């Protein structure tokens, strides 16, 4: 039984086919990686699944229910959570409060109770505080809890976003390049964290450029190029797939030209 299922998903921007007819599924405890050259449509795919873009075609279902085009906050209530490639941190809030905000669905209550600071409101805040602390501990940011989030390093912010996404207690977790810009040690920590989360029964969908990480932790890999799925399978078979190798080498040649120009 798959928790997240994507069928024939597609979207156009103006005349451009950004994503076309992409389908796959992720079961509980599985880590499925989406790879592909820059501009292949990976983030666009994520934005459609998480409700930020309305898909032009196809279907997204969560635990059997059709959730295509559903608002992000309603998807969150159904247990879908994500991180962002270009960090989306609440800069003016403390590190702890960033994770606390991730608890929104567990801690929200009547505005009146919050304004009067009724015992019920204080209890909700206290519970959030405790579990936010535990999550920061888990991603190794406990000591930075009271710092302003804007003051953290890039690698730390990446982990902060993961902690915030986990605060939702998701059943499906979308990670958009969680290890980008991280050094080898940080990458390994994130690697371990993601594996741990999946082992807890969460369906993880991952976009990542660090191929060693992808090969190491994925149960299944989906390869996109120019918005279309060109391959899918076990890590070992993907590494040998000639179409995948061609797409990547082509892209790298293109990037080299960009750098020179």
């Amino acid at each position, binding site marked *: 039984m798959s928790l997240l299922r994507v069928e024939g998903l597609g979207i156009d921007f103006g005349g451009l086919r950004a994503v076309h007819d992409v389908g796959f599924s992720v079961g509980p405890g599985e880590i499925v990686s989406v790879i592909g050259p820059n501009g292949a449509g990976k983030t666009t795919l994520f934005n459609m699944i*998480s*409700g*930020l873009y309305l898909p032009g075609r196809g279907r997204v279902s969560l635990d059997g229910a059709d959730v295509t085009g559903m*608002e*992000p*906050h309603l*998807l*969150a*209530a159904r247990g879908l*959570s*994500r991180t*962002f490639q270009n960090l*989306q*941190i*609440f*800069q*003016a*809030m403390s590190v702890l*409060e960033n994770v*606390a*905000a*991730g608890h*929104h*669905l567990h*801690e*929200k*209550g009547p*505005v009146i109770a*919050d*304004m*009067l*600071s009724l015992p019920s*409101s204080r209890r*909700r*805040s206290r519970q*959030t505080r405790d579990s936010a602390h535990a999550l920061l501990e888990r991603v190794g940011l406990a000591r930075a809890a009271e710092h302003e989030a804007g003051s953290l390093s890039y690698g730390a912010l990446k982990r902060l976003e993961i902690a*915030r*996404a986990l*605060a*939702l207690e998701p059943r499906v977790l979308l990670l958009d390049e969680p290890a980008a810009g991280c050094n080898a040690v940080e990458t390994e920590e994130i690697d371990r964290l993601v594996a741990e989360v999946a082992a807890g029964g969460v369906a993880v969908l991952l976009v990542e450029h660090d191929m060693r990480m992808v090969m190491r932790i994925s149960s299944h890999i989906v390869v996109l190029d120019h918005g279309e799925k060109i391959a899918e399978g076990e890590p070992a078979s993907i590494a040998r797939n000639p179409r995948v190798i061609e797409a990547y080498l082509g892209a790298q040649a293109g990037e080299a030209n960009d750098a020179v120009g």
Partner: protein
Amino acid sequence: MRLSTKAVTLLVLSLVIAVAPLFFPSTFYYRVGSLIFINGLAVTGLVILIGYAGQISLGHAGFFGIGAYACALAPAHLGLHPVLAAVLGAVLSGVVAYVVGKPILRLKGYYLAVASLGFGVLVAMVLANEAWLTGGPDGIAVADPGLRALLRGFGVDLSNAQFWYGFCGLVLVLGAWLALNLYHSPTGRALRALHGSEVAARTVGVDVARYKLNAFVISAVYASVAGSLLALQNRLVTPDMAGFMHSIEMVTMTVLGGAASVPGAILGAAILTALPQVLTVFQEYEQLMLGLVMMLVMIFMRQGLLPSLARLLRGRGG
């Protein structure tokens, strides 16, 4: 035990209100004080909207006007007690804010600023032109709420200026307490989160449109109560209370002191309320000064006076 920032803020605010009269050179300053508290209350509401939720309203004087005129009209036409009329005004302002905000806040961007601007102008025009009901540009008298007489019954005899100083001060402390509670609460976190990153707030489950609407309604009620207080104290309401300049004044006070900081915004209200009262030069050039203050704040200390000063004191620079 270490006192929380919230407790310190409320203590300092109460202390300043209680001690300031000892230094008043004349009873005129009670009047200045109560004006500061009234503006401070309206501005505290704007802190919730602008500082917490990151939304701009350029028509809050409209709600101020609804609160003020409710105190004039409801006792005359419905036979309500002026204090109940203030409650009615607050409810009405909340409902109007809900109706105006509901369709607007579904949209992303600065639509609220434009819509509220239109709303504020509309209220001011109605109040100035429907003379049969509102008394037109000359305004209309407000009945005595009888609160002072009630207090005298308990053996406390205050002058009119003293009474309003104390009463408005009390309401301001209450308003600040509610706003500070909100800041640290789950709702406050959701508001500040959507201010920080709307996309991220949505993905953690915040119903962004609903929370923005909550903030708009709450801030409208604050402005309405402030308007009622001014009406009850002045015993007269005029359309300029709801005027566009007054809306701009409130936003300027908020950003001058520090939009995200309740004590900061109250400080901003104090400065911009006291200056024209004390320096007549300022009064003549008030609009010019407001524009200048707004520009200087935006260029040199975008977080506002108090947060910038606090950073400076902590040695991290503005």
